[in-house]
């Protein structure tokens, strides 16, 4: 049933992706199919209509899914391996080249864990949902499986299917349970994402059929193909648009404030916590891993776009008066660091990008959950209509403060480590010229000033100052309940854990990232050697003689 591919340890040919390692237990298939299967049973689950029973069922399924992914990580995943692990292959439609191929490497595994973790918390966050609860939990669970599939599948066509499949639940969750402008927001979301995903299909087909013969869409196959540079550039451009919408990259981001602005808290957590990461993951998986020659050309663009993201979205967030949209823009700003890290050609920077995705997944989810919890009490998202709320809701105030501080990259929490790694990766990166690095680091660091401006202003307007008498007259402000504290605490444990000792997270993927970056660097080297391209060669040193000076102090003495 499962192909056992011989394990190639030891010498890895440069430029080649190592062979997958398979396991005798289908962990990943199970983690994809179990929640989907569970969701299909939701309609038959007895419920009195208020969702009081079905939510326990959904929570159970989500927790078991989380345990399955944890099991996969503990039993079948070896962080020191660079290539695919937990690999499963079943020929599905051989003539089409469609294979059920799943697996996980350092790029996938942390995000799979993140997905099942955030989904379980989102189910808990959806406790008060009483409108069509069965449909709601059905969609959430289906999405859980779909999203794990996005990160786990190792076949381009399957990836496309999973990517599209995940759109429907999100669309429905937005359109049925959203705010006042939910139809508009849902429509915009689907137009943007579905429209842009055409490029994935086109690029995927082109890559799968490349070189004639039977089509093969598997990543391991594609990674070892010798695509021409022109072909790579075309595919890269198309994919960049598709993933740029998802991440999002300015100026393709305008669906996000609308979608996030209308979504309910649990959907919101999923959108910010996982959906945005699909864009970053796909950029790493396809653009950086499968198309290294094009990546070498496009990377500076990624970095520039990343800086634009950071500053532009921070400014728009500052001006926003709607709480949800404010946080939505802050997500865009934080994703800028992911872009810079991916474009940096250094293991440190790319690791930072990966960590930033995980970290933002946790912090973004916590902030969006708090927005929802606050809205439940104030019934308004306009900052003008709040004020002095902290006197009635003291625990809520404390939770908000901690999560905002996490979001503004306070040391001791995960956001700081990831941003620091991106910065350090960028400045020590010998691929780019010194002036370019200086300008980019300087501009990106402006985000360090802008982030506290908008986040602390937000806290001040919600919680500080005299109590808003109009609001108090209309609403009863109750403090956070244990369920809410529990959700935030669950998110804070990994946030602070990573912040205190980042290696617990970074060690799970460094091997894969190192391999990826090494291949991308080879591609840059090839460009420098073959053509006299003036873009990079000024400070680039071939890897044999690369920067011996750099390590004198960091490696000796400790």
């Amino acid at each position: 049933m499962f192909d056992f591919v011989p394990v190639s340890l030891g010498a890895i040919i440069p430029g080649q992706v190592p062979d997958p390692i398979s396991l005798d237990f289908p962990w990943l298939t199970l983690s994809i199919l179990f929640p989907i299967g569970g969701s299909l049973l939701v309609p038959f689950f007895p419920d009195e209509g208020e969702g009081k029973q079905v939510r326990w069922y959904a929570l159970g399924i989500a927790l078991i899914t989380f345990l399955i992914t944890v099991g996969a990580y503990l039993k079948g995943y070896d962080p020191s391996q660079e290539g695919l692990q937990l690999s499963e292959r079943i020929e599905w439609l051989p003539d089409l080249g469609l294979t059920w191929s799943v697996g996980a490497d350092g790029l996938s595994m942390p995000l799979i864990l993140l997905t099942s973790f955030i989904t379980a918390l989102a189910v808990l966050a959806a406790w008060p949902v009483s409108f069509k609860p069965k449909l709601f939990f059905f969609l959430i669970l289906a999405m859980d499986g779909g999203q794990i599939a996005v990160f786990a599948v190792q076949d381009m066509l399957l990836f496309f299917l999973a990517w599209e499949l995940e759109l429907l639940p999100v669309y429905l969750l937005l359109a049925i349970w959203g705010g006042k402008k939910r139809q508009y927001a849902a429509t915009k979301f689907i137009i943007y994402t579905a429209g842009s995903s055409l490029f994935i299909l086109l690029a995927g087909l082109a890559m799968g059929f490349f070189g004639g013969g039977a089509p093969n869409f598997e990543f391991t196959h594609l990674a070892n193909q010798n695509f021409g540079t022109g072909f790579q550039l075309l595919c890269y451009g198309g994919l960049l648009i598709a993933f740029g919408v998802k991440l999002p990259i300015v100026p393709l981001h305008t669906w996000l404030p609308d979608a996030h602005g209308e979504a309910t808290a649990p959907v919101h957590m999923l959108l910010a916590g996982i959906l945005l990461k699909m864009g970053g993951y796909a950029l790493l998986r396809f653009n950086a891993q499968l198309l290294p020659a094009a990546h070498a050309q496009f990377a500076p663009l990624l970095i520039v776009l990343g800086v634009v993201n950071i500053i532009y979205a921070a400014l728009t967030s500052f001006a926003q008066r709607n709480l949800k949209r404010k946080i939505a823009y802050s997500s865009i700003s934080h994703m800028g660091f992911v872009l810079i890290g991916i474009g940096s050609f250094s293991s440190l920077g790319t690791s930072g990008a990966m960590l930033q995705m995980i970290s933002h997944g946790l912090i973004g989810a916590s902030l969006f959950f708090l927005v929802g919890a606050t809205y439940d009490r104030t019934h308004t998202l306009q900052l003008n209509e709040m004020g002095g709320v902290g006197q009635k809701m003291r625990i809520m105030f404390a939770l908000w403060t901690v999560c905002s501080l996490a979001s503004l990259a306070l040391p001791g929490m995960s956001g700081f480590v990831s941003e620091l790694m991106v910065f350090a990766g960028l400045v020590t990166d010998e691929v780019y010229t010194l002036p370019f690095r200086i300008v980019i680091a300087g501009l990106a660091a402006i985000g360090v000033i802008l982030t506290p401006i908008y986040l602390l202003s937000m806290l001040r307007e919600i919680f500080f100052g005299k109590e808003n008498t109009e609001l108090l007259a209309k609403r009863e402000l109750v403090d956070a309940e244990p369920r809410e504290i529990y959700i935030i605490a669950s998110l804070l444990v990994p946030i602070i854990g990573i912040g205190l000792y980042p290696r617990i997270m970074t060690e799970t993927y460094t091997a894969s990232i190192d391999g990826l970056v090494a291949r991308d660097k080879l591609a840059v080297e090839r460009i420098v050697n073959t053509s006299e391209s003036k873009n990079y060669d000024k400070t680039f040193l071939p890897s044999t003689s690369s920067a011996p000076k750099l390590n004198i102090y960091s490696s000796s003495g400790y």
Partner: protein
Amino acid sequence: MLSPAEIAWLIPLLPLFGAIASGLGLIGFNQRINRLKKPVAIVLLTCVGASAVLSFAVLFEQIFNPHTVEHLFVWASAGDFTLPMGYVVDSLGAVMLALVTTIALLVMVYSHGYMSHDKGYVRFFTYLALFSSSMLGLIISPNLLEIYVFWELVGMCSYLLVGFWYDRDGAAHAAQKAFVVNRVGDFGLLLGILGLFWATGTFDFRGIAIGLSDAISLGSVPEWAALGLCFLVFLGPMAKSAQFPLHVWLPDAMEGPTPISALIHAATMVAAGVFLVARLEPLYSQFPLINLLIAIFGTITCFLGASIALTQMDLKKGLAYSTVSQLGYMMLAMGCGAPIAGMFHLVTHAFFKAMLFLGSGSVIHAMEEVVGHEPVLAQDMRLMGGLRKKMPITSSTFLIGCVAISGIPPLAGFWSKDEILGQAFNTFPILWIVGFLTAGMTAFYMFRLYFLTFEGEFRGHNEDLKINLLASAGKEKDEEDFHGSGSIHESSWSMTVPLIVLAVPSILIGFLGAPWNSSFAKLLSMEEASKMASEFTWSGFLPLAFASVLISCAGISVAYFAYYSKKIDLHSMVVKKFPTINTFFAKKWYLDEINEKLFVRGSRKLAREVLEVDAKVVDGVVNLTGLLTLGSGEGLKYFETGRAQFYALIIFGGVIALVALFGVLGN
């Protein structure tokens, strides 16, 4: 027996555990914990007290046997990059550890009295413990990056504590301002640290200094870049130690409770900048230009703080600008290449300024009994006067503080300030003149504070004045706020004991730094101490010392005649003749206005414009292109009626059709 330095990592951890325990308690069992005031205070005091004992053990060990203990572990790694963290204990750190734990402990005892009726008592103690922990961590950081970590954490504690009374608008704004202005400095610090890492491949203090000079001599790092990086790093201390022009946050931070002003905004956190410059001495000493810049910024700050303090009517604001000015002196010392003199002033200043702030807190506490909790009234010296007879302990310790800061021998301030002025005289004579004049101003404004507060007639019952003061602050009288007894009395033991304890070092500690036999210098660096002792001549020391005592006495006399015996009318003599200068000082050099107009409103306007562009242009264009690709108006209707999933289904269906097609063809 285990050497104290080997377990020095416990020093920041003990208060941290205390803070975590009571913090979790506050979140989990808010009301129950809030009732347990005394037990929580005792637990946290024990934690900080244990740290203090350990710190003194470390200090004594360093006194008898100066050596450096360093332990590191790999905190993060990627590729060939490793980032060690850990702790280091040396004599400089040991001095700071002892200083911070002592003052933190005393401030906690004091807070027990000061905050006893506050409903946020437990939260306050939790924050205090958290701050102590971060500050102690900063001191034992072995490299720049770890310093940055704790640098941000003390900034966060400052944010939480300035905004402690979060129902006050002023506190909310001040807290945010403090954090954001410090982030502007951190922006430079972070870039500087990253740049130095690029240039030298390490974050370690000595490694950076050696690496940078090697890199310059090899030519791999240009000189201008090295200078730029050093200056960027200095931006951090500039914000944290309230140097011009990033000092604007410190006076506003007085919105926080007074024990905080004493601990964070006078004695410890604001000194972190000076401490960092001292740590980076091996780096900065290579670049005379950077040292000159530091000295110039220090001098400007020193003069600016003193000049604004001349006109302040708010007791705490007056002390705050005095702190700004004294921090300027410390930076001046650092710029003159005399870190020992700067560190010595840091230590003496920490004691007497903490005492002065705690004394002002005692005064404010008493005033609140008469005028209510409105800070505009309780802190205004126009309503005080004649408090000496009613508050003997507070007034005498405050007087000791004033004498000490004015530089009258043999109190602490004389020795440390004179050392700085002497260094400046030898290095930058022009800057010495400014520092010298500022010494006179210092004496004047400090005694002005003393006379206005403690001498003369009590003016707290003047209702017209109160109404005027409230009106000029744009506030209304809040009758409900008043719970006072209506009479002034001395504060409780828990507030007066710390004052008395702090008075001892304020008087005596100066002798440790006597220039001919400085035990302080011997502790920090044997070489420097012997150099100081050998260069010392009475003929060089006496004229300068005599001059500074003279100008201080002049300042005190002017204050005496103007505010005590009322023989000089400064208003008609000075204010009317030079109205521009007076308004310039009273308006704080217009820096707050510039800040407000240029940066606050500017950034808001820019942000609004960007959002406008985002909503109209970017969204518009992308929407349009999105629609165009969809083609006909027929399709549009689908989306507007909310059936856009149709679109996704088309693609999805397309793929399925493709799959089916191939499946059929294949067979």
